[in-house]
């Protein structure tokens, strides 16, 4: 089958280099603004790009596909170099955007971020034990009740930082290998963390210690030794937790620590989240998977990247008509799904 070769534009050195950069770009994290109109995306070169995501108030299917979605609107409004290393995770509060990468976390003001030459509000480093290599921060978690930010990553600890004072209050140890992901259990202020060592640990914030450990790889139903034992993604809904990674994507009942449903997905999943009565997951492979709680695959919606690393749902109450799902991963593109059934368009760095 002949593949159509696009016509080549005469490329000088700069153009070739930029094209190569875009080809090898990975978007690790995304975050919606508090108003819901902007989407921030962070990539492996340390850049953060802000996309305007607002759709007209009619926000119907036709508007999404109409001239509003022109080429220019698919490009970021502003791109700036946030970190020296990759931006692995981002979270947003009412006024701030926190981005974390190679060992440091930076805060940005949403109000300022659209202006050119924006500088971070502050930049903090949690206290690390080792100094040989700077550990990365893989996950950020906001705990609104405490007004604190939890960081977890390469040094196998969870650090808590108080947002008012900016000091690091706790350092929770327990993992034997670096931590991939965090999830917050609302009712009792507990934090779940999943790591490379294959365990999911629950931490009680008030008592600052580990409450429960689930060794996922030891359960035969879900373990997949050829993929490894690492836990790449976590999501929790009070009593229930879904996690995946090397082992298969599984739904657990937390109190009894038993796996209830195994989702038959052979590709390791990198991000999972609860949405209404569905579970959305994404990982190796270009599709966003929608699962019923019973374990059935409801839909597989293909995106434009060969592998996905993060999903983001715009559920801000301020813009109820702009409920969209965005997915990004091993490419320079962010796929926007206005209706969860198909990919509407892609934003691109």
């Amino acid at each position, binding site marked *: 089958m002949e593949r159509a*070769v696009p016509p080549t534009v005469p490329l*000088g050195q700069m153009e070739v280099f930029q094209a190569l950069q875009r080809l090898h770009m990975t978007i690790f994290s995304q975050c919606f603004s508090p108003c819901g109109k902007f989407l921030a995306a962070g990539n492996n070169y340390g850049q953060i790009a802000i996309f305007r995501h607002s759709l007209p108030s009619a926000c119907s299917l036709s508007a999404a596909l109409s001239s509003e979605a022109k080429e220019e609107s698919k490009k970021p409004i502003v791109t700036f170099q946030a970190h020296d290393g990759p931006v692995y995770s981002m979270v947003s509060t009412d006024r701030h955007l926190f981005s974390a990468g190679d060992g440091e976390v930076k805060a940005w003001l949403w109000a300022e971020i659209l202006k050119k030459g924006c500088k971070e509000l502050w930049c903090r480093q949690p206290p690390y034990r080792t100094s040989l290599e700077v550990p990365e921060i893989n996950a950020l978690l906001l705990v609104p009740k405490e007004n604190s930010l939890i960081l977890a990553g390469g040094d196998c600890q969870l650090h808590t930082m108080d947002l008012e004072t900016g000091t690091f209050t706790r350092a929770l140890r327990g993992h034997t290998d*670096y931590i991939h992901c965090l999830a917050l259990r609302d009712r009792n202020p507990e934090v779940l963390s999943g790591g*490379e060592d294959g365990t999911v640990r629950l931490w009680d914030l008030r008592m600052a210690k580990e409450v429960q450990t689930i060794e996922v790889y030891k359960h035969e139903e879900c373990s997949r030794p*050829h993929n490894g034992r690492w836990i790449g993604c976590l999501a929790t809904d009070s009593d229930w937790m879904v996690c995946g990674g090397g082992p298969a994507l599984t739904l657990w009942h937390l109190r009894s620590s038993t796996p209830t449903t195994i989702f038959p997905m052979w590709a390791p999943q990198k991000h999972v989240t609860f949405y209404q009565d569905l579970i959305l997951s994404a990982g190796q492979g270009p599709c966003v998977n929608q699962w019923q709680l019973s374990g059935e695959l409801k839909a597989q919606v293909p995106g434009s990247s060969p592998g996905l690393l993060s999903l983001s749902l715009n559920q801000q109450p301020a813009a109820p008509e702009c409920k969209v799902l965005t997915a990004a991963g091993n490419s320079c593109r962010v796929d926007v799904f206005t209706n969860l059934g198909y990919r509407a368009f892609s934003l691109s760095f």
Partner: protein
Amino acid sequence: MSSESSKKRKPKVIRSDGAPAEGKRNRSDPEQEGKYYSEEAEVDLRDPGRDYELYKYTCQELQRLMAEIQDLKSRGGKDAAVEIEDRRILSCVHFMTLKKLNRLAHIRLKKGRDQTHEAKQKVDAYHLQLQNLLYEVMHLQKEITKCLEFKSKHEEIDLVSVEEFYQEAPPDISKAEITMGDPHQQTLARLDWELEQRKRLAEQYRESLSNKEKILKEIEVKKEYLSSLQPRLNSIMQASLPVQEYLFMPFDQAHKQYETARHLPPPLYVLFVQAKALFKPHEESQDDESDSDAEEEQTTKRRRPTLGVQLDDKRKEMLKRHPLSVMLDLKCKDDSVLHLTFYYLMNLNIMTVKARVTTATELITPISAGDLLSPDSVLSCLYPGDHGKKTPNPANQYQFDKVGILTLRDYVLDLGHPYLWVQKLGGLHFPKEQPQPTVIADHSLSSSHMETTMKLLKTRVQSRLALHKQFASLEHGIVPVTSDCHYLFPAKVVSRLVKWVTIAHEDYVELHFTKDIVEAGLAGDTNLYYMALVERGTAKLQAAVVLNPGYSSIPPIFQLCLNWKGEKTNSNDDNIRAMESEVNVCYKELCGPRPGHQLLTNQLQRLCVLLDVYLETEIHDDSVEGPKEFPQEKMCLRLFRGPSRMKPFKYNHPQGFFSHR
């Protein structure tokens, strides 16, 4: 005659008229004088009418007598015979009368005829006379007309007009008093004047002719003098050559060059002048000559084309080159020379160049390096996008349509490549998409581009030669890393380069793991494509390489496909993607010392190192029996990092451990 015969019979007839009967008897002696009987005269005397009556009467009598005889004879009787005898005699008399009357009638007739004949003759004579006279009259009239029409020769001569004549002629010729009144005299006078004038002018003419002859002779003499001067000057120049050489002033040689250069078409001339200007202070690095084929310039042969070849000839005509060309030899530091020959296509108003690289030592070309130094592609894309396969002059498209040439690409091997920088060096500027009627060669355009282009050309040749050498080594499976690049890699590299071959552009596009590069527009047909195979144990890593003609400022691009425990490419394995990124995006640290010709080999070496790291850091699958195929020998701080669980691909010198970027 008839009268003679009638005279002889006459004696038998008894005439009623007495006189004439007597006359007759005397007739027997015609010569007797006296009265002789002439019936002719009698005819004149007798009245024809009365004769006619007599005749009628005689006939009646005769009839009566006959009738009586008849009666008598029929009645019979005796006295009948006497009666009959009387009547017979009477009848005989009547017969005699009748005969006379007959003779008279004949004579009258004859007379009448004779008279008529005579009259007729007279009339004929008069008639003839009339004819003669008329003829003569006509003749005379003709003669008169001829005389009247006679044109004398003097009327053919163009004489000056009368007024002029009177003005110019001297009075002894014009004789105005006489000639004014008499046109004949006037004409004579005019003729005289004409004759005199002509004689005068003829005299003048002869004088001028003789003058001219004299002057011609003088010119001849002077010419000979001059032509004898030229060889003398030449011999002086020849004699001065040794002196020039002695003083290191190759004036003569340069002069000859400039002489031929004057015949160059404008763009080539601009190029020649600018190149000379640029390289004046550095004589040794450039050798510039204009190659002349002067005889070809002067003779143009025209063959009558056969019908079948006419279109072909038209095309050849359109693509005809100017017979003069400029050869530029660029010498690089390592004694390799780039020979450039610039041509000018007259009808298309563009310049083309043919390139050739020669080295100080003989090069053995490795198989994969076939295209590197080939004249067709060695100068391709000197500036980005300048592939030299299309004519840069937009006006040429209309000319091509007329003779059915689709594109210049088919002819570039023969004619040379019409690169854009060649046009700029010749001072020709073609504004895009706007066919200009005439584009003239501009010196300022050429001079502004000359230096950069020469530098680029030298860099290009050197990088190609460097690649040439590297390829020879790569084909043998050795990655040649120079000593000043050793710090980039660990001491021990186990993975080996096993294969290095050229692949075609179409084959590259068809590979399943090169989709991204093709879609990004980085895999055009001006690039060179290669396939490298790196092996360690059971693992085989295929690398498809895109080599841009602008190497080494534009880096080669690698796309990887690893066959080990399944097929891994950048679409299903993040670490393969990271390896590609290490080689493609982080190429600047691999350039090595300037001018960076080591980039490709360093990239290949790094690829081997990356494969080592990848294979050694792969987590061992506990469910599978047996030891790890590749024990970890590399020193790594951490095996995995980040959400994508990247392997430590970055090599740190001089500590020698691997970490993550």
